């Protein structure tokens, strides 16, 4: 589905059109579910997140404006934020789903290997290429799994202070690079 189509459906949904909303769901749910499953590693929790995310999308659709960016980015962000909130809450109360830590398979998506990349992705990857590999790795791990600074520091066996400053510096550099582009 193209972005103008999604824009149009979203504005129809903003006016209470459920058919349009269902079409949005059909076009986007597999991607958003993939995002939530990656972060939460559990399909039932991811399903809860989907429910919250789509209800939020329905509620917030009237406030979405294409000037804010692409509708897909907006929906991905809603889903990621919800998934990360759930993840943090579980960690906070000490529910530990991380027994996979030991056998953590390295299946972090590699956007560089993607054959069809959008213009925005190409630009972003171009800028991330200028970071050193560990810093780039930090950003990707954080983005795909929603890891905290602490968790990244554990996984990369790097002091948390270093991770924090890597990430901050990387973000600043990526932003500057995209703006200069």
């Amino acid at each position, binding site marked *: 589905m193209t972005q103008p189509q999604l824009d149009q459906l979203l504005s129809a949904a903003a006016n209470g059109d459920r058919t349009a909303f269902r079409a949005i769901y059909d076009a986007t749910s597999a991607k958003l579910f993939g995002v939530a499953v*990656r972060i939460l590693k559990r399909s039932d929790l991811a399903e809860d997140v989907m429910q919250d995310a789509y209800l939020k999308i*329905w509620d917030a659709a009237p406030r979405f404006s294409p000037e804010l960016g692409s509708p*897909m980015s907006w929906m991905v962000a809603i889903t990621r934020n919800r998934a990360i909130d759930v993840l943090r809450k579980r960690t906070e109360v000490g529910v530990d789903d991380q027994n996979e830590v030991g056998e953590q398979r390295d299946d972090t998506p590699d956007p560089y290997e993607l054959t069809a990349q959008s213009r925005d992705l190409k630009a972003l990857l171009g800028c991330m290429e200028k970071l050193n590999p560990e810093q780039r790795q930090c950003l990707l791990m954080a983005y795909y799994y929603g890891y905290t*600074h602490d968790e*990244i520091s554990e996984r990369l066996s790097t002091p948390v202070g270093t991770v924090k400053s890597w990430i901050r510096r990387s*973000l600043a550099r990526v932003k500057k690079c995209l703006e200069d582009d």
Partner: protein
Amino acid sequence: MTKRDLDIFAGEYALGTLDAKERSEAENLLRTDASFERSVLEWEQRLSPLSEAEDAITPPASTWVRIEAALPAAATVAPSRGPLTELAGQLVELKRSLSMWRYASMATMVAAVAMAVVWLGGLQSPFQHTAPQEQYVAMLKSDDGKMGFVVTMNMNGQQFAIKPVSAKEPQGQSYELWAIMKDKKKPMTLGLVGTSAYAMMDAPAGIDRKELDKGVELAISMEPMGGAPKGKSMGPVMFAGLLVKQTP
């Protein structure tokens, strides 16, 4: 924090590295500081192309059922009985007049009703004849936790929608849906259910709001072709779940 620090903080929030405490700080800022909100939106737009590399995984069919059930009832003054609703009504009417146990004809009816419902489905949720209302939803799962069917029942227990999720059609046998009420000894049959299409059905008298509030469990048993003889379940329970209230 300086403006620049705040922008990086927004970036960390969008990236997802903040811990629970920091996230709630960021969320407070999001509510109170328009320029911070702007920064977060910009960061989300900058980073979200990374999701292009994310695997697409089709969510279980129950996901949409749950979302739809939780959507607020349409506030717009949709005609309460448009031509499509009328048609669905007639089909339900017609179905009722058929013998419950003539499975072959019923399957056809279920398919026809399902078609009408699918057709209507996009326009309004199954129970949109009246004002916004709560509904009851049951996820019918098998012993090993596999979701077989999702049932949505309106508040008064007169109508319900059943959506097969992953159940397979039993060979030479029929699935029959039962309601098990708190104070009643015998389960009450709600009829045979197919596994191929979403169907909307009328519930027999006896299930009402009072019963629903007390807690009604639904179960699907495997019965001889055509249904349990004399309305008494003989077969094993394949799927079961509790009807739970969902507020719009």
